[in-house]
């Protein structure tokens, strides 16, 4: 019995489409709720190669909706990308899964796009990274699928370079304030619907069914029984700095994002170190000085007064319990300076 038989029976995919899926490479940016759902659907569908990038670790409050994680992953505080790979490889050992525990920068997305990449899935929680994906998509001619949701409300749209408007055409001014799952909450079915729209578009693109790609933005509110497809074609802007006639790819060419950032909607500051941590040494040093450290091969975490501090191997530090970059820096200096 062929494990993909129910999918090859679906005539727009068929045996030919299944072969194309097996040869494809998909980048999923983010392994939160949308990343988990998309990764699982595409791994089950038999996409040959999947790369997952995420900067965070599994927390108890993720389990309500992030479908690749179990209680054990939250107990161990595993990075999401690692926990995701563990589960995905038990689901389908035929898929090659590459993971990166990092916060995507222009350099890194450039490196990734220089490989063969057939589609990128937006599973981020912030517009800054979406613009990075958007500009890379235009620069390297790789389609991407936007998705976002909060509460019971969600949006999705497919961006095909040279054909549809890009994300910056649609949203030339980033909101100064926007809703995230951490500020407005979110329910599983809103994620499930956004994921279904995103994964369907990815399957269309990967199997060469470009005529089936949705030429509109899908908008829904699953609690209030609302659903619209809004045509986007008119918004294509010849003067767009990402996809227009004179392109500057602003998100790709700007200075590396500031070394400190407040994580959107969370009471957390991320500091970027200049070099990787030697986690084992650091953990044993801190343990000797009486700190209660929890560590795994990817990160170390500890409670310092009212702040939870997480040190990632790549040199990043998360300081939970503050939105104040100056305060976060001073805490960091005090203990690790």
């Amino acid at each position, binding site marked *: 019995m062929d494990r993909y038989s129910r999918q090859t029976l679906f005539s727009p995919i068929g045996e030919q489409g299944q072969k194309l899926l097996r040869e494809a490479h998909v980048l999923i940016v983010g392994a*939160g709720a949308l990343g988990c759902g998309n990764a699982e659907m595409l791994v089950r569908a038999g996409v040959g190669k999947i790369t997952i990038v995420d900067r965070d670790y599994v927390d108890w409050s993720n389990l309500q909706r992030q479908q690749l994680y179990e209680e054990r992953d939250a107990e161990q505080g595993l990075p999401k990308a690692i926990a995701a790979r563990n589960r995905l490889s038990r689901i389908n050992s035929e898929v090659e899964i590459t993971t990166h525990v990092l916060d995507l920068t222009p350099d890194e997305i450039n490196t990734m796009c220089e490989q063969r990449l057939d589609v990128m899935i937006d599973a981020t929680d912030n517009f800054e990274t979406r613009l990075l994906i958007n500009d890379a998509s235009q620069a390297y001619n790789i389609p991407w699928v936007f998705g976002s949701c909060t509460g019971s*409300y969600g949006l999705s749209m497919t961006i095909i370079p040279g054909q549809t408007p890009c994300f910056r055409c649609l949203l030339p001014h980033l909101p100064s304030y926007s809703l995230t799952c951490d500020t407005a909450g979110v329910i599983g079915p809103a994620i499930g619907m956004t994921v279904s729209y995103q994964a369907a578009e990815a399957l269309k693109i990967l199997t060469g069914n470009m005529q089936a790609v949705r030429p509109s933005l899908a908008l829904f509110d699953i609690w209030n029984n609302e659903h619209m497809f809004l045509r986007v074609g008119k918004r294509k802007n010849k003067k767009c700095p990402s996809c227009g006639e004179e392109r500057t790819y602003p998100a790709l060419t700007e200075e590396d994002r500031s070394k400190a950032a407040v994580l959107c909607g969370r009471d957390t500051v991320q500091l970027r170190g200049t070099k990787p941590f030697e986690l084992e040494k650091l953990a044993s040093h801190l343990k000797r000085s009486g700190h209660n450290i929890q560590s795994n091969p990817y990160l170390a975490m500890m409670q310092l007064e009212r702040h939870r501090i997480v040190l990632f191997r790549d040199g990043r530090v998360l300081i939970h319990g503050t939105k104040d970059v100056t305060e976060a820096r001073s805490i960091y200096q005090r203990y690790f300076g």
Partner: protein
Amino acid sequence: MITVLLFAHLREQFGTRDLQIEENSITVADLRKQLEEKYEFLDTKSIMIAVNEEFADDEDVIQAGDTVALIPPVSGG
């Protein structure tokens, strides 16, 4: 009369699912301006606007009977 549909947090901010605007003809830009004047909390610059299920540009004209959707981008994922 123009119907303006609201989504996500706009609905809570306005306390309703839709607004009725008494205009026969108004550009998208002018509608933005009018809404910002009337509702100080509103930052329409980053809100996407569709007219009759199609995304509109600022110079597009909305006619009486049209349905406008104010679409706040949300970043959650």
